[in-house]
């Protein structure tokens, strides 16, 4: 695949590229069709920034919802609305993407307008003029600088903390589910996510489960609305 995934380009850009490649419009049907491609593509991407990956996964979850709805047309109206909003978001992003191409074209014409360069003499005149803020003292300078240093410090530590955050891979979760099913023929989804530390982990586990269903390795059943999801080996 020759799709370029720029570091900051984001999930919507990837999705639009996939849709354009298939020469489709933004619609529920095309999004359902593209879901597998999108997820397949994510797997090929090396991403060591969990936050960035999370952005891609949120979109993956939405695509899976759309695909699920295509397969199970009796989904709740609540989800209907969410899908519609997502389509709108994508269309809006596409509009701005088009606009950004026009802006790029304008910039490349080099029709820059220049301000006059700052020239003290031109403003103040030849005479030397010194106009200090009358109330400013050396002590005020010292305390302002100390405050500035304090403000700059915590931001640094916060950054270091983030890099220690644990990464979760879909592959990892797939393996975990597969391993659980070695010992027993079926297991509840709640057991799988019992040790999840955050929502992202639960989402990733759910994506892993959907992936296993797609690969026809497991089947799932749910006895009642919002009931436990039972996962069984095929």
């Amino acid at each position, binding site marked *: 695949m020759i799709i370029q995934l*720029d*570091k*900051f*380009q*984001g*999930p*919507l*850009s990837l999705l639009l590229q996939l849709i354009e490649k298939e020469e489709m419009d933004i619609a529920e049907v095309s999004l359902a069709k593209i879901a597998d491609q999108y997820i397949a593509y994510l797997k090929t991407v090396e991403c060591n920034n969990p*936050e*960035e990956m999370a*952005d891609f996964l*949120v*979109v993956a979850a939405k695509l899976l919802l759309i695909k699920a709805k295509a397969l199970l047309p009796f989904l709740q109206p609540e989800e209907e*609305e969410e899908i519609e*909003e997502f389509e*709108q*978001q994508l*269309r*809006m*992003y596409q*509009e*701005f*993407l088009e*606009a*950004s191409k*026009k*802006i*790029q074209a*304008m*910039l*490349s*014409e*080099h*029709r*820059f*307008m*220049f*301000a*006059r*360069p*700052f*020239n003290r003499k*031109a*403003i103040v005149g030849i005479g030397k003029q010194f106009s200090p803020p009358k109330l400013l003292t050396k002590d005020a300078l010292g305390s302002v600088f100390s405050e500035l240093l304090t403000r700059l410090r915590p931001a640094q530590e916060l950054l270091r903390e983030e890099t220690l955050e644990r990464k979760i891979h879909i592959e990892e979760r797939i393996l975990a589910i597969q391993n659980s099913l070695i010992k027993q023929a079926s297991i509840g989804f709640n057991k799988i996510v019992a040790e999840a530390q955050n*929502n992202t982990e639960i989402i990733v586990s759910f994506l892993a489960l959907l992936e296993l269903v797609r690969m026809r390795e497991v089947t799932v059943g749910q006895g009642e609305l919002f009931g436990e999801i039972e996962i069984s080996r095929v």
Partner: protein
Amino acid sequence: MNTLSSQIESLLFVSAKALSLKNIAEVVKAPLEEVEYAAEELVERYKGAVSGVQIIRHAQSLQMVSAPENAKVIQEFIKDETTGELSRPSLETLTIIAYRGPIAKLDIDRIRGVNCSLILRNLMLRGLIEGKVKKETQETYYSVTIDFIRFLGLNDVAELPDYDRLHQDDTIDRVLAGAEPNL
């Protein structure tokens, strides 16, 4: 031309930077409305005349600049090396801010579907956007700067193609209103 217009012209010329209408009104000691009216007239007059000097209007400020068609000559003369090149993510973010500014960071993130912190920081450093904190909510709202408009060769951001439609596209408001808080 009346005195007020002439005074505004002199001020814009001497200051060599963007001046807010409020600031101008204070200096010339005239009511803001009159200054607004005179400024409007001035911008139009410069636009109408094929002149080597133009006036940009943006966010209640005015700046006098050289005409876009002479960019090459001026760039050579002042040895300016601006290329106008931007990475695609920067360009996307700038586009959204140009059409929809002042816009909150969260809304930019929602439109692009990614966290834009790093890009915003970089655009601020380059002086292409500026952030203003809204007092009530402590949220920062971003707008493009006059410097960015200078590079486009426009007198006003409203001259961007499709500005009216994209500026107030109601689907944007719908998406922003309905978007999940955690995206």
